[in-house]
């Protein structure tokens, strides 16, 4: 197969929307195609979680020597302008082609930090630990949500969530490709999206081999149920007192009734707050998905 084409939807597109587009077409990682063209039609608005996953997917395909083209049908007037603003093109591999053209200058540099509701995509370079990254992300939340009475708790929770998720990328992802972190406050949608994405091994891929010896009763659980265990009990391939990070994230997030979206190489689970902890929303949880390397986690925290 020479080239495949994947069209993104004409609407606001979050992680679920992106997933639908990927499932509908030919799966780019699984074919021996030489070219992947993504069509971004006029009216397609990518939300932060979808934008970061899309970014990771494009860079993965590029590193797998596919020719990758992103075709923005309404040029910078549409979503490309927004993506430029959040630094999408700064993080995109330079060999990926943009149609009609790559934006000439990065609006991220131009407007950096001026809009408190938007936070640029931050690169997680595993070879260089940027300790100011967490601070930038949390300052953005405190600016965007400064009028809320619980801004301190919200900022503290978001800091912990980012800290643990990004630390996980450093500890586990085992990839030369960069990971990414981003957040955005959607004032109309009354929510805050926190997203961290890496292109390494999936969370369960590193955990499963250790289960047979450490937690044999969990070894046969399907992915969705095992993920619930990871976030509710804390499991680690190293056992002992490890594995508390993701559980801690979930404990913090559930206090804000946050939804938790976890995309692994071929599985996507949406966890929603229930009585006694997170439970999978089966309507939006799938296995056997098109391959997307790595671990991609998003928290959507309602702000009403």
């Amino acid at each position: 197969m020479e080239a495949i084409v994947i069209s993104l939807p004409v609407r606001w597109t979050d992680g679920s929307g992106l997933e639908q587009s990927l499932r509908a077409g030919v799966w780019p990682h699984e074919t021996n195609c030489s070219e992947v063209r993504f069509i971004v039609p006029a009216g397609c608005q990518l939300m932060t979680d979808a934008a970061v996953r899309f970014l990771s997917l494009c860079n993965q395909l590029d590193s797998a020597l596919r020719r990758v083209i992103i075709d923005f049908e309404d040029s910078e007037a549409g979503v490309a302008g927004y993506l430029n603003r959040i630094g999408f093109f700064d993080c995109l591999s330079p060999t990926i082609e943009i149609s009609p053209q790559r934006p000439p200058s990065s609006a991220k540099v131009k407007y950096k930090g001026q809009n408190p509701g938007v936070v640029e995509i931050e690169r997680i370079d595993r070879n260089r630990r940027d300790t100011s990254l967490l601070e930038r992300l949390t300052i953005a939340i405190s600016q965007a949500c400064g009028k809320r009475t619980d801004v301190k708790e919200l900022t503290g929770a978001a800091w912990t969530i980012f800290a643990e998720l990004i630390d996980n990328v450093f500890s586990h992802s085992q990839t030369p490709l960069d990971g990414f972190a981003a957040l955005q406050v959607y004032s109309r949608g009354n929510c805050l999206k926190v997203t961290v994405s890496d292109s390494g091994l999936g969370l369960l891929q590193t955990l499963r081999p250790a289960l047979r010896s450490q937690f044999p009763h969990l070894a046969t659980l399907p992915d969705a149920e095992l993920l619930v265990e990871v976030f509710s009990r804390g499991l680690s391939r190293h056992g002992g007192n490890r594995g508390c990070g993701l559980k801690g994230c979930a404990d913090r997030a559930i206090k804000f009734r946050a939804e938790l979206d976890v995309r692994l190489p071929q599985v996507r689970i949406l966890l929603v707050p229930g009585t006694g902890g997170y439970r999978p929303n089966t309507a939006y949880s799938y296995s056997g998905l098109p391959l997307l390397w790595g671990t991609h986690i998003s928290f959507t925290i309602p702000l009403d």
Partner: protein
Amino acid sequence: MNTMNETGRLPLRDFMAEDDGWGRVAGRETYGKLMPFIERHPGTLIFRVWLKGVRRVDISFASETIVELSRRYRGMKGFCFVDLKDTDQQENWNAAAERSRQPLFKWDEQGSPTVMGLQPTQGVSDALQFALQREVARAAEFAGSSGVSITNASNKFKQLWEQGFLLRREAVAESGGTEYVYARIR
């Protein structure tokens, strides 16, 4: 019993590279600096951890530092917080201690304790409350005060010591025999 209560000050920020304690790797680096400090103070049995200058710690960092020290020295040395006021930070210390099944005490300005992490079982919580209200406690004193047998009181204190809620040392009983004297971690 004076030496049992010898306390030392442990200013955590002095052992950290920056104001935020972020991640397992940074936690291990801090632990590597804390260990020689603890070893240089063999006579100090209780370390009061001061958090002045520490802006935030995440659960992984908390887990690799004070929680790990408490676990390692369980029953021999104790670590407690004396200026932990931020509820957000308390949640992270608590989560890390809980994961390690390690109790960790926080004392407020009025001298009231809060147990983070592992909680005492119902069967020993009365003995713990008794011990927390005094510098040192003996099984015979608790037995006399609560009406349980000395053996029962002794077993409760022993369990609390083994689980890291209390410290203890041998002393000479009034009878001339050996008894254990238990101390709170404050």
